[in-house]
């Protein structure tokens, strides 16, 4: 019997305490923000969309190797002598044409492992976070500043250079051989 009334008492008192808590919260200002109108202040270490500053990129492929999901694809072409690619901001001389630097941001899982090994600090994560697209292909970001023709041209240049070099070598070799041959004949 005692328990019976105790139960009733407990039920009413605890419900009353709970209701007082919720009643107080009716007048507490909201902790949420009205998102698209008000945007949160993001800390400086925010890890969102990847960005590559191609002026500084030397095409060393370290970020692509560090990536656990292989979302970075880099292709490079060696420059031919006489071409000046300029320097990076921390004084490294660039020696490679980067003809492909694709980041598939749909694959990226924002671990930031690619940022740390970069020798020129040119790949980093920004605080841009709204970048949904209707087409999945639009999420593959191409960072190379060169136009399509330029890329082909660089490749061709390199191939041509290599071919010339090979031809030169061959010619040298031939010259050598013929020299040897003539020596042999002698």
């Amino acid at each position: 019997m005692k328990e019976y009334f105790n139960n009733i008492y407990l039920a009413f008192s605890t419900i009353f305490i709970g209701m007082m808590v919720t009643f107080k919260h009716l007048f507490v200002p909201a902790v949420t923000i009205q998102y698209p109108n008000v945007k949160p202040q993001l800390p400086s270490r925010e890890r969102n969309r990847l960005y590559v500053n191609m002026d500084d990129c030397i095409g060393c492929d370290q970020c692509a190797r560090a990536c656990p999901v292989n979302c970075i694809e880099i292709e490079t072409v060696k420059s031919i002598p006489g071409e000046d690619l300029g320097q990076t901001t921390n004084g490294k001389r660039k020696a490679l044409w980067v003809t492909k630097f694709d980041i598939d941001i749909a694959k990226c899982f924002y671990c930031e492992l690619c940022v740390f090994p970069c020798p020129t600090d040119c790949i980093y994560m920004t605080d841009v976070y709204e970048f949904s697209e209707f087409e999945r292909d639009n999420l593959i970001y191409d960072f190379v500043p060169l136009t399509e023709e330029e890329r082909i041209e660089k490749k061709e240049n390199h191939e041509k250079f290599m071919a010339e070099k090979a031809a030169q070598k061959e010619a040298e070799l031939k010259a050598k051989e013929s020299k040897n041959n003539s020596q042999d004949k002698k």
Partner: protein
Amino acid sequence: MIFDFFTKLTGSEISASIISALLPLFLFVLPFALIAVLLERKVSAHIQDRLGPMRVGYHGILQTLADILKLIQKEDIIADSNDKPLFNIAPVLVFAGSYAVFAAIPFTSSYIGSNINLGLFYIIGISGIVVIGILMAGWASNNKYTLLGAMRSAAQLISYEIPTLMIVVTILMITGTLNLNELTEMQSGFFWNWMIFGGQATGIAKILLIPFMIVGFVVIYISTLAEVNRTPFDISEAESELVSGYHTEYSGMKFAIFFLAEYANMFAVSAIVVVLFFGGYLSPIGYLGNTLGLPWLIPVEQLLWFTFKGVAFVLVQMWLRWTLPRLRVDQLMAICWKYLIPIAFVNLLIVGLITLI
């Protein structure tokens, strides 16, 4: 009253009854449901330190309209294995049950849908249709979750009618009438004449009655809360167990009708509590119409008072909902059979003895 007025106006009893039957729907139930849904969302949001809907209109006041528009546009999905006729009738029945209650509710002294002598009895009886509707919905959906929800709901609604009736009988013993209009008029005067303060009784009987009337009010409030499936008694649509209970399979407009019925019901039971214990449409402090000498103002004021009282109880229902966890089905039954019914019985007995004084 209003029916006679329309009979005179249109000259035909049929059209008059149709008009007076539809009047509360368009004047009261639909707008109320629209506001109540928004209110529920706003109350819950502010309790939870949020703001709730904010984007449609100023502070989201048009949100429910937008929702209704969305629900109307939605495809009406009927699964292959549903029992189609029952599936389609169920929401109608549920709404009919809860809407029919409004027929006997006295909104003002000059408007009552149907001023029948068995008003209270009629309300208790007609709301039983809701149980049939819910059982139908649960069965016809052909889904185990809905079936469980419907079974729980039926058991719950039928059990909780007993304490409700018991308290109604308690009131009946004091007032001696089932006519809601008369019942309200018997509480006229100032607020100390309300049933919760012992009604028209005087002297020692009044003082003795007050605690038992409060107990009676608490019991009937809890049991009506259970009858409209609100937390902590919402086991029939317990979303964490039964997904959504008996209306899991419903979508679009049919779901909206269930929703409408739920909010109509919330007000209906609040209205009953108000009529029984809080003087119905009566003003606690007198009428502005009397002081200004404008007799037509009095019904308007009464309607405002009635709505105010009803909405206050609806707000308490919401407040409870966003505070409390849910009971288990056996505990729900235990509360009814072990606590509410014995207390209501004892209350009935004591009030009966007091009225003899």
